[in-house]
């Protein structure tokens, strides 16, 4: 029974308008197996799983569950076949209790009895070690607890096939450990688990088999025993990781940004940044590594004047800019540029064309009541030529451009403002290799000119090759500040998990 095939996917294809998200994807998952689905952002992992859980309908291809061919029209169909999906963004109702969230949509007696159901839920939670109070309201729960409720929900529905979409992205290392324990228990009891991720260390820790997706296609399936991180990376990006990003040097080394004791508090009154201090000099690329949600967003936004600072100093060329909003910063001529992670939702106006996006900041400095778009028009045309932006025209909504072109528009605008300080958050996320290289080249070009660059990244190989120094943060605290020449991925990974630089680098040396 050990090798019974639970899921077999053959040649699944799904398109969104002109975009082919999945093309002839194949996958096989056995009973009692933890199967990792690995791929970069935009490689089609989530689309595939959404088809498996009945949220998207495939355009073509077949799905077999335990040997039976199935067609899922709704999530209900998928659930009926024992598939339970845990989404990256939890599908929970905040004002309801855990119990209510668990039993909603289930068949049963008309009236929702209390004691008996709570008993049944407790029994399942004990079996898998899922500690959760059935009567606690979701809005009172931590992220980890919410995820536990999600898992409980699908097990309660009798799921034997569990799909988790980037489950660790929002978890602390301890919570991640707890999750992995649960998953191993599920595996022992005969379930099949599919875990979607792009984190190699987790794959190597938890998975039995690994299927790699690239650009919507399956590249291959390997056993964990027969592979290693290097091979998996190769499969993911499509070639050996000799990134060979050229590292340029800049002579001028004046301190341009000096941050001391920076602390910010988020909506939930949690310290998102806790006493952060560092310096960034001109002509330097300082990388920031960390698990998603460790405080990267808050750091960028605090410097850019978008996030309130609780305490600490942010000195730009010796001037404390804490308390200045972006308007003051633009008006004062402080040459700082911020390339936010959310390109269409923050950096650009999605429904507007290039011209209207070029004036997004510059318009503030125009005189009078009317807006002048002449300069923006010629700027757009220049950028299209210079950065080889592929667009039907300067008035074409940027939303409809490809990810790489959108990023070129955003980065192009910011670079044209001749900043002395450039803050970039995940500038190559979702971009293909070629577009990524264009972005690296642009950043290096700026560095050569003496611009100080804060680079928030997720790909550790890129951080190591592109940056001069790397700062590692974990839960809003700096756990390491290392020379990029003298560190390796494993060491960075340990610091990202909260180990201090002293222990990690001591081990490495």
């Amino acid at each position, binding site marked *: 029974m050990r090798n019974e095939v639970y899921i077999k996917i053959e040649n699944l294809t799904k398109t969104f308008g002109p975009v082919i998200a999945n*093309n002839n994807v194949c996958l096989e998952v056995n009973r009692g197996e933890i199967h990792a689905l690995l791929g970069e952002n935009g490689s089609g992992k989530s689309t595939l799983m959404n088809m498996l859980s009945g949220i998207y309908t495939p*355009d073509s291809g077949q799905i077999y569950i335990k040997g039976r061919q199935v067609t899922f029209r709704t999530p209900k169909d998928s659930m009926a076949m024992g598939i339970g999906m845990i989404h990256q963004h939890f599908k929970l109702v905040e004002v309801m209790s855990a119990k209510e969230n668990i039993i909603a949509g289930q068949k049963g007696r008309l009236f929702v009895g209390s004691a008996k159901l709570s008993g049944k839920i407790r029994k399942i939670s004990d079996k898998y070690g899922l500690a959760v109070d059935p009567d606690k309201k979701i809005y009172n729960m931590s992220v980890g607890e919410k995820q536990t409720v999600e898992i409980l929900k699908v097990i309660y529905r009798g799921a034997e096939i569990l799909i988790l979409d980037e489950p660790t992205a929002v978890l602390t290392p301890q919570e991640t450990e707890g999750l992995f324990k649960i998953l191993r228990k599920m595996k022992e009891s005969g379930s099949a688990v599919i875990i979607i991720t792009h984190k190699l260390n987790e794959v190597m820790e938890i998975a039995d088999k690994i299927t790699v997706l690239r650009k919507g296609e399956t590249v291959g399936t390997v056993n964990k025993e027969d592979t290693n991180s290097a091979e998996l990376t190769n499969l993911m990006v499509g070639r050996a990781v000799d990134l060979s990003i050229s590292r340029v040097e800049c002579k001028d080394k004046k301190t341009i940004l000096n941050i001391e004791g920076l602390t910010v508090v988020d909506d939930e009154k949690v310290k998102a940044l806790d006493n952060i201090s560092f310096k960034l000099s001109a002509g330097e690329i300082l990388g920031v590594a960390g698990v998603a949600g460790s405080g990267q967003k808050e750091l960028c936004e605090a410097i850019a004047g978008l996030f309130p600072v609780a305490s600490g100093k942010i000195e730009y060329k010796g001037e404390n800019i804490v308390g200045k909003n*972006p*308007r003051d910063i633009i008006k004062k001529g402080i040459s700082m540029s911020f390339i936010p992670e959310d390109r269409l939702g923050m*950096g650009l106006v999605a429904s507007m064309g290039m011209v*209207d996006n070029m004036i997004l900041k510059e*318009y503030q400095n*125009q005189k009078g*009541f009317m*807006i002048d778009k002449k300069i923006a028009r010629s700027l757009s045309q220049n950028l299209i030529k210079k950065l080889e932006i592929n667009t039907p025209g300067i008035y074409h909504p940027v939303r409809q451009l490809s990810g790489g072109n959108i990023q070129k528009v955003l980065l192009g605008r910011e670079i044209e403002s001749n900043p002395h300080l450039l803050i970039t958050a995940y500038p190559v996320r979702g971009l293909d290799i070629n577009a990524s290289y264009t972005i690296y080249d642009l950043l290096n070009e700026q560095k050569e000119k003496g611009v100080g660059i804060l680079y928030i990244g997720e790909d550790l190989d890129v951080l190591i090759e592109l940056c001069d120094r790397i700062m590692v943060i974990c839960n809003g605290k700096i756990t390491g500040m290392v020379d990029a020449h003298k560190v390796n991925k494993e060491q960075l990974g340990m610091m990202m998990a909260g180990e201090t630089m002293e222990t990690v680098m001591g081990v490495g040396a």
Partner: protein
Amino acid sequence: MVRIVKRTDLTKRQSVMFRLLAILGALLAAGIFILFLGFNPFRVYLSMLDGSFGSLYRFKESIIQAIPLIVSSLGISIAFRMKFWNIGAEGQIIMGAFAASYFALYWSNLPVYVMLPLMFLASAAAGGIWALIPAIFKAQFGTNETLFTLMMNYIAQKIIVYVQYGPWKDPKALGAGKIALFGDNAALPEVFGIHIGWIITVVLVVLVYIFINKTKRGYEIQVIGESENTARYAGMNVKKIILSSLILSGALCGLVGMFQVSGVNHTLSYQVANGVGFTAIITTWLAGLSAPVIVIVCFLFAVLQQGGTFIQTAFSIHSSAAQLIQGMILFFVLGSEFFIQYKLVLKQKTDKLIKKEAA
């Protein structure tokens, strides 16, 4: 199996065609209903056209109906551009009328060249304040503006009921709840037989178009409507822009109140807005928030209304027929938006398409 797919390929001409087809469909459906009630739909439609275009007088009446709709729609469009769902135009019109009437009734000795500008400013200010109140709460505490502005409509209406039957009641009206007629110094002058509001309307259409498309504030409004995060990123003071634009939105609606009391009714009654504020929400939406298109849509609605009034006197068909047809057209046009944005595709077709692309 049928699937719903987002369209990306529709030309402007095609989308206009879709909407026209929807209007035709609505007329057909309403025609069946009218037939069912024992009237000849062709006769009803023809006489409605006759009623709104049949003579110079009737044509002028149609324009008088269109003016309040257009100006209110302009006001609403500014709020809607920021995704601020101001459905309080009705109340803003009423308060504008109220403020203008105050000067007409209680400062009645003012010369006309002082009186009219004063009424103009008072109505704009009153409408602006009426819109500002919910906007402040929205900006400060995130209070739901849709429901807030809706409630403000009825408070405004009840205020007028109160003054109409109470302190402002005309003693000469012999106990009836009526407010006295304004003096001639408080009447908008006529140009080509229509109160001068029409010229102001034309100017406002152009101004609002320029405001939204050519000014810095208009640009800011558009950015905020798309994404408040982007606006903050670009250094815009989002709260201040929302508040000041809402004053403008309300002020335009308030002006409508002045046009109605000073140009049309020459007195105030609690029915002064007469649903214009609500109809304007729909016309604004149908016009896609664009000032020039608002003029077209509002004129069509005015034609329907004027036609409705005409058939009542000419054929003793109740004027509500117009409202009924309006409702039907709204349903069909709202429904047609779906077919403009999406298309239905048979399952097999997509399979083929993909094979073709793959090959």
